[in-house]
């Protein structure tokens, strides 16, 4: 069993799996259940000013399912905690006292005036919690009131409020970013300028999860009407991974600790976030789908992985893939790969053929000598990987690098020499003679 102990900006937890600020962390009851099941930490559901907000009394969630009803995307219109501040503060204090080895971070969202922040920071600090997370992310409801994502979308506000929090508190400050923005680096840089100890991302994505095509109400439907909500779950993971990497490799924010959020469902997801720069991960939808016990799979999976790779600390995973994230222009255009179909594994469904035939490069046979047979035609295969993606059988189709010879499609020899777009003759902006390598 590998040592999964995590130290994220000085906040210690027995493992890097935290529950994100969300419905599962709204009450001591839930949080204690989570700790009993082994979660390393929680970010308590966002506190605001009294009187507390009110939530709708109808459906708050909507979902996208795969056809066998696996939940792959969740949308919610729930607001921040609707419980009185004092009750939350009391419970936070008790839970932290009872579970000293677990991370307990408190999420906050109050109006953008300094006195609100100063006031709540003092109360929160008194609970003995490990740190605070600034909710600049929720895209629904609170954003209409000038909070949540409407702050996160303005880098100047992000910087300003972060600075207040650092000034008026000794607690570590994590700034939670909204993905509802064109360039995630801007608010991340602002958070850093404001003195943030870390950023966490992503918060949810503005979304309408669906429409009832009989009543024509958006979903979830509240008395026949709907409002956009925040989208999360496995479906948003690719967006979150990219934004995590963007911050990890940005010259201004490189090294800024990141708490990775967005569709983390298994230990593999967690490792991917960490490889792209996250120091730990936060989970919500997976817990809301399957319950807290899933963390046990995450713990054992990560442990096995670390043991098999010889990692002795989770920090050794963090950032390992960042150096491999580059701009398109630096991709090696001399790299040639061809699809290979393992005929022993092939079940002859023909999906690779029709995907390639109808929508790509006509590079897979369907019939050879009158027999149903699927085989790659190297002279047509551009190596696009679509067949790999649509094949229902694990490892049946793989991409193989050509290391020598001539690419039968282009007629060019495979040299193994690196060459990218910056020097390509088709590039009007090409800089001949000097190959520009990516920084670092």
């Amino acid at each position: 069993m590998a040592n999964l102990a995590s130290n994220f900006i000085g906040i210690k937890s027995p493992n890097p799996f935290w529950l994100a600020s969300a419905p599962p962390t709204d009450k001591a009851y839930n949080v204690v259940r989570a700790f009993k099941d082994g979660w390393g930490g929680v970010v308590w559901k966002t506190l605001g000013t009294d009187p507390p907000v009110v939530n709708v009394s109808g459906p708050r969630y909507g979902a996208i399912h795969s056809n066998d009803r696996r939940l792959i995307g969740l949308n919610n219109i729930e607001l921040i905690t609707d419980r009185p501040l004092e009750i939350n503060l009391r419970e936070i204090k008790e839970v932290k006292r009872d579970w000293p080895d677990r991370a307990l971070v408190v999420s906050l969202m109050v109006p953008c005036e300094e006195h609100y922040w100063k006031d709540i920071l003092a109360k929160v600090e008194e609970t003995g919690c490990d740190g605070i997370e600034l909710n600049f992310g929720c895209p629904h409801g609170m954003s209409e009131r000038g909070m949540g994502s409407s702050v996160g979308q303005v880098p100047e506000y992000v910087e300003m409020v972060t600075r207040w929090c650092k000034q008026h508190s000794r607690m570590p400050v994590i700034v939670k970013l909204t993905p509802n923005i064109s360039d995630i680096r801007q608010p991340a840089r602002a958070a850093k300028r404001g003195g943030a100890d870390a950023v966490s991302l992503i918060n949810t994505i503005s979304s309408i999860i669906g429409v009832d095509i009989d009543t024509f109400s958006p979903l979830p439907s509240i008395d026949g009407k709907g409002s956009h909500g925040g989208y999360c779950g496995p479906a948003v993971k690719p967006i979150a991974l990219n934004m995590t990497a963007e911050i990890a490799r940005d010259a201004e924010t490189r090294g800024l600790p990141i708490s990775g959020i967005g569709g983390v469902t298994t230990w593999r997801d967690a490792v991917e976030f960490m490889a792209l720069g996250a120091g730990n991960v936060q989970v919500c939808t997976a817990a809301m789908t399957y319950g807290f016990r899933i963390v046990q799979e995450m713990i054992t999976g990560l442990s096995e992985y670390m043991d098999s790779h010889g990692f002795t600390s989770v920090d050794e995973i963090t950032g390992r893939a960042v150096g491999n994230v580059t701009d398109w222009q630096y991709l090696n255009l001399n790299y040639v790969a061809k699809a290979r179909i393992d005929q022993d594994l092939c079940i002859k469904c023909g999906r690779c053929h029709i995907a390639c035939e109808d929508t790509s490069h006509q590079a897979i046979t369907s019939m050879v000598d009158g027999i149903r047979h699927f085989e790659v035609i190297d002279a047509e295969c551009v190596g696009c990987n679509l067949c790999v993606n649509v094949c229902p059988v694990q490892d049946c189709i793989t991409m193989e690098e050509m290391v020598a010879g001539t690419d039968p499609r282009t007629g060019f020899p495979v040299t193994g020499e690196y060459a990218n777009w910056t020097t390509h003759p088709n590039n009007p902006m090409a800089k001949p003679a000097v190959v520009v390598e990516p920084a670092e």
Partner: protein
Amino acid sequence: MATRAPDIATGRLSPEQYAANFSDIHPPLGRHEALVEADRCYFCYDAPCVKACPTTIDIPLFIRQILTDNPIGSAETILSQNILGGMCARVCPTETLCEEACVREAAEGKPVKIGLLQRYATDTLMDEEGEQPFERAAPTGKRVAVVGGGPAGLAAAHRLAMHGHDVVIYDARQKAGGLNEYGIAAYKVPDDFAQDEVEFILSIGGITVEHGKALGRDVQLADLRSAYDAVFLGMGLAGVNALVLEGETLPGVADAVDYIADLRQAEDLGTLPVGGRVVVIGGGMTAVDVAVQSKRLGAKEVTMVYRRGSDKMGASLYEQELAATSGVVIRTNAKPLRLVVEDGRVAGMVFEETAELDGRLVGTGATFELPADMVFKAIGQTLVPAVLNGSAETIALDGGKIRVDDERRTTLAGVWAGGDCAATGEDLTVAAVADGRIAAESIHRALSAG
């Protein structure tokens, strides 16, 4: 051996036991089950399951329509190729057709449950819509006679009616449906489904059924040819192969097809006499059907005896397993030698063990006797060619069945044939439906050209 009274009795079981034994052998899928199962389909390119279906139903499409919660559209996809899609979903040996070809059979040994999905869609349409989704084209004024109201005849009649022709079906029995009504095992088509389906098919309009009219007895082919613009023959196989053994006509010896017909028509299964010890001769679907149903009627011992090895049996492996799990003993490589007769009725049967020498079946000389209260003959049915001879011209036969070309045309002008009476392929409901549809399209082309 002391003479004993034959053990043939009615009411061997309680009404509850009969009900349980003859209820749906494959309960239908619920909506949730159907959606989960439909999700297993890979929507294959040029799908092998479609190629394996004699009626070439677009299986990936109809399953995808179920997946998107469009069972009515799914049923329309099925019925447009096979108007007896509901019956075929129940009785097709899918394990040797679509489901054998399913790529998930290759991948996991667990094909998509195509038959049950087809039933889900067609049942939904028949239950919810009640009426069929097809409409007749404008009347053409052409009239077509269809001989036999079984799967082939019904499929032909429906397609012809759709094209605007008027159809008269001549059926020898009191109910249409053919083997669907009189032949299929009861637990495959409970709740009078065969008649519901006949009604569903006829609801397109333009089809009249003349019941109790047998070819050669009540109607003559020559008369039909002169009275109608075209004739389709789909009367099945009325003859039954004989054992050619002494005592074959004695009490206690019965034709399996007759017995199954009685069973299918019985209001109360408790009134149907069944032997305590039953011997079934044959290795086809009919043999399995009569063996399993005898067991389910309460027979104590049922033995199926087939002259060759199990790999040569007409019954699929699945059907053989069904027989075995129903408590039927299957003995292979044994041929009937003689009937044991006591007091003028059958008391048992003596068999000789067989072996295959260069593909030829030979007796080994070793014999054994099975005591029996009832012996069922299920060794195949034949065409009775005499009914065709009402015409001055003759219809050519092939291996005892009516010769047809790709369009199901016989050698006699204006006469088409399909189903079991035609030499087309396997004697399956689905093959008969394919014949009927193909013949109807050919007739339509011929009538449109004329």
